[in-house]
């Protein structure tokens, strides 16, 4: 009884403090969440309103009669079905290309000794410092001078090499214990067989992390598709499609917002499903 009291006496100020800090945390987080989500919430609501309802005063905070036809109009009238397909194609090409070239190069740097290895590695790392924005003058000329222009490849080939991918995957290959490689050599397993059968399965977590960030980067690209597809409707991606949809306001803002929602849903799903991989690749080992 006495000991019980003593415990309570010691515990109560701490408890109230802990409860207060818990309360403050929830308060901060809830306020933050409201601020972050409010624009998205209003966008979703407005994407389901008629043009008249959108202009209404005071504004509507819920759709009284959800206008799902805005989504249909965005798809058909706004050509979003074409753009969506282009974005899917663009993303698949960039991701498959950059994952493949990065896997091969990373494996090579991690596994073999060869002349000029240090120089080539330094060259790879140097490209990490070059922002794509400062290369567009010449890249635009390069692509314009090839027959790639006017095809999806013009949008994707420039991004099929990734220094970040090589960097992340090389770390992963280096982390494989040397005994595993030696054991496979004793078994008479050649380097490429080792690569496909042993090494790739072992780096799967890092491979997944890089794939997720590659998908995100490709899908959300703005500058390069803007350069190439502003006047090329057949290859226009979703992000640029949003711009054209927005500037041709005859469709109504509900339709434009419906388009924006269509463009963001795939990445939101990706984020929810692959949150761990996303965080891993965004931090990329840079955080101590």
């Amino acid at each position, binding site marked *: 009884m006495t000991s019980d009291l003593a415990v309570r006496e010691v515990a109560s100020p701490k408890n109230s403090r802990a409860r207060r*800090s818990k309360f403050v*945390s929830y308060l901060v987080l809830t306020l*933050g969440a409201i601020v*972050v*989500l409010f*624009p*998205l919430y*209003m*966008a979703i609501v407005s994407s389901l309103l008629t043009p008249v309802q959108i*202009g209404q*005063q*005071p*504004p509507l905070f819920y759709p009284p009669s959800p206008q799902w036809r805005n989504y249909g109009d965005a798809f058909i009238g706004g050509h979003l079905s074409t753009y969506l397909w282009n974005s899917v194609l663009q993303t698949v090409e960039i991701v498959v290309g950059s994952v493949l070239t990065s896997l*091969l*190069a990373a494996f*090579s740097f991690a*596994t*073999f000794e060869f002349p000029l*290895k240090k120089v*080539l590695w330094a*060259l*790879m790392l*140097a*490209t990490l410092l*070059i*922002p794509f*924005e*400062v*290369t567009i*003058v*010449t890249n*635009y000329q*390069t692509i314009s001078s090839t027959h790639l222009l006017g095809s999806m490849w013009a949008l994707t080939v*420039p*991004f*099929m*090499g990734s220094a970040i991918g090589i960097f992340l995957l090389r770390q992963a290959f280096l982390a494989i214990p040397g005994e595993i490689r030696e054991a496979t050599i004793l078994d008479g397993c050649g380097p490429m067989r080792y690569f496909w059968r042993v090494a790739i399965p072992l780096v799967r977590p890092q491979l997944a992390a890089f794939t997720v960030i590659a998908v995100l980067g490709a*899908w*959300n690209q*703005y*500058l390069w598709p*803007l350069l190439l597809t502003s006047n090329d409707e057949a290859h226009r991606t979703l*992000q640029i499609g*949003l*711009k054209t949809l*927005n500037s041709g306001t005859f469709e109504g*803002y509900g339709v*434009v*917002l419906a*388009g*924006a929602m269509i463009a*963001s849903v795939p*990445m939101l799903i*990706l*984020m929810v499903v692959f*949150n761990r991989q*996303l965080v891993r690749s*965004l931090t990329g080992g*840079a*955080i101590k």
Partner: protein
Amino acid sequence: MTTVRQRRSETVLALCLIAPALVLLTVFLLYPFFKNFTLFLYHAPPYPGLPSKWAGFSQFFDTISSTSFLEGLTATAIYTVLVVPIGVFLGLVLSVAAHQKLKGMAIYRTIFATTAVSSVAVAAIVFGTFMNPVLGLLPWLGIDTNPTILQNPTWAIFAMAIIGLWQFIGLSFILFSAGLQSLPEEVLEAAKLDGASPAKAFFTVTIPLLSPTIFYVFTVGVIAAMFTFGQMDLLIGPGAASAVHVNTLAYQIYQYVVTQPNPGVAACISIALFILTAIVTLANFRFLERRVNYDV
């Protein structure tokens, strides 16, 4: 044991595996980057097809002392100052608040991460709609929308910054959360047991321990901010951007490639912008070495 022939075939294989990535990175990053340093020496011909005229360094100095460049520099700087410090601070506060084993934390984490996966086009459309005078929200809040925010030379840059800030909070939150998870739990616990108030523990323990992450997030934010132009392009456009003081340097590069092609000037701005980012990155690293607490 390995014979010379084996070694040689291994070298060939190693180089073949590197080749695809190396060729792509060389053609689409290294070559165009260094090409800037020859392009910037030539005036664009008055008509396409005519030979370019040698300009020497004068074109570079003319460009970076021109009014439009200085306006672009100012817009870029104001935008960066508006977005990065607030974004770093909010990301830090939210991640510290979420760094507890409490119910519902996973939901909050997901909510904050949503902005990091939203594209600039989506963010611009979502916010641009509310800045539109035709729609009800701003007039209802009592904000005068004539001229609209996007046509207002004073406020347009703030509108651009809110969009950038919204996007940056998510990334800032994710990076800080990862940084917090890598901190030694005992130290934070010890501060609590010593009776430090949450606020005191935050300033005397969490922030110093987190300083490498803070500088990393800061650098990432500044570099991203310096290359911003998406919301300017989508909501304002190349013609009006200069009139409302949001014609950032990255946007000017785009304009000199497409809307008024001039490879020489585009290369000059590219070089200047690259030098600026390099300075920021190096300055951050120097600062990081001197001031940041790495002894964990």
